[in-house]
């Protein structure tokens, strides 16, 4: 196996879009670098490997930042819902008997929390990728938590529907996610609540000022960085 073939194989460590855009050029630069190298093969390859591993890891990490923003939004929204439930139970008064949480305002309120937390996470995690954070990452980071919460609520509703008399033990993930979400009694109420949540989260996120381009938290060191 020639050195170029080894380097071409190493390029597979980068995400496919990056490889398609720059892979050919990187191979060409590697060829020039190898032709002009002044160090021993061991030193040369340790430099090349370090460069590939660190930059590919960074590129891969950058690709998962939208997921981190979405998960932070999910966690913040669930925590808010649980806190609201705790406060409601703590200060419960018989006066509130028979009062129900209305799906639309509750969904809108949680959507505001989701939109703000996603925007905050993207502001921290997307310093230099402003354009991407402003486009697809915006929608996906809001859509994913809403989809997870909607599916969890739907599963719990379906499980409860199987036997409305005897309590069915839920999987732990459902307990973690759904408690506090004030599940409406019918499916149209659930749909309205989550639609309102998605809408207000997107509006809040869109209304936030554009993410400013700031520096990456890492700095470059000698050689590979």
């Amino acid at each position: 196996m020639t050195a170029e073939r080894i380097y071409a194989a190493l390029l597979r460590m980068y995400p496919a879009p990056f490889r398609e855009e720059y892979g050919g050029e990187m191979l060409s630069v590697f060829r020039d670098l190898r032709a002009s190298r002044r160090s021993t093969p061991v030193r040369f390859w340790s430099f090349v490997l370090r460069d590939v591993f660190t930059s590919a890891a960074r590129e891969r990490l950058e690709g998962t930042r939208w997921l981190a923003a979405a998960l932070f939004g999910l966690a913040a929204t669930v925590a808010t819902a649980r806190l609201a439930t705790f406060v409601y139970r703590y200060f419960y008064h018989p006066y509130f008997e028979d009062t129900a949480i209305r799906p639309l305002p509750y969904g809108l309120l949680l959507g505001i929390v989701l939109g703000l937390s996603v925007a905050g996470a993207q502001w921290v995690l997307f310093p230099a990728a402003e354009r991407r954070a402003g486009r697809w990452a915006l929608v996906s980071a809001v859509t994913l938590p809403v989809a997870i919460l909607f599916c969890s609520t739907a599963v719990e509703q379906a499980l409860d529907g199987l036997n409305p008399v005897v309590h069915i033990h839920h999987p732990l993930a459902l307990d973690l996610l759904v408690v506090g979400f004030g599940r409406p009694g019918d499916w149209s109420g659930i749909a309205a609540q989550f639609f309102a949540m998605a809408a207000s989260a997107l509006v809040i996120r869109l209304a936030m000022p554009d993410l400013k381009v700031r520096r990456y938290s890492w700095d470059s060191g000698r050689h590979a960085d």
Partner: protein
Amino acid sequence: MTPTRAEFHVLLALLDGPRHGYGLMQDVEELSGGELTIGPGTLYTAIKRLRASRLISETDADAGRRRCYKLTRKGKSIVEEEARRLQELVRAARKRGLLPSQS
């Protein structure tokens, strides 16, 4: 945007005009007095970020059909701003006796 060390050197190298990837690598090493040697991975991840931030842009390929990059107006102002910031740091270091004062 405050560029990283590698990005700043790439911007600095492009002040002299458009360069292709390998030319940039050589210039970065020369500009840093051999202190900073970047590989193709570091170079092209920096190029990607600088292009995304519109600090550099692609220009016509050279005679060897290699893609070349040039500094944008925004890139030039950023590199000037960063150079001034570093100058201030050096001045502060001199003032506190960390570096010998200029004669």
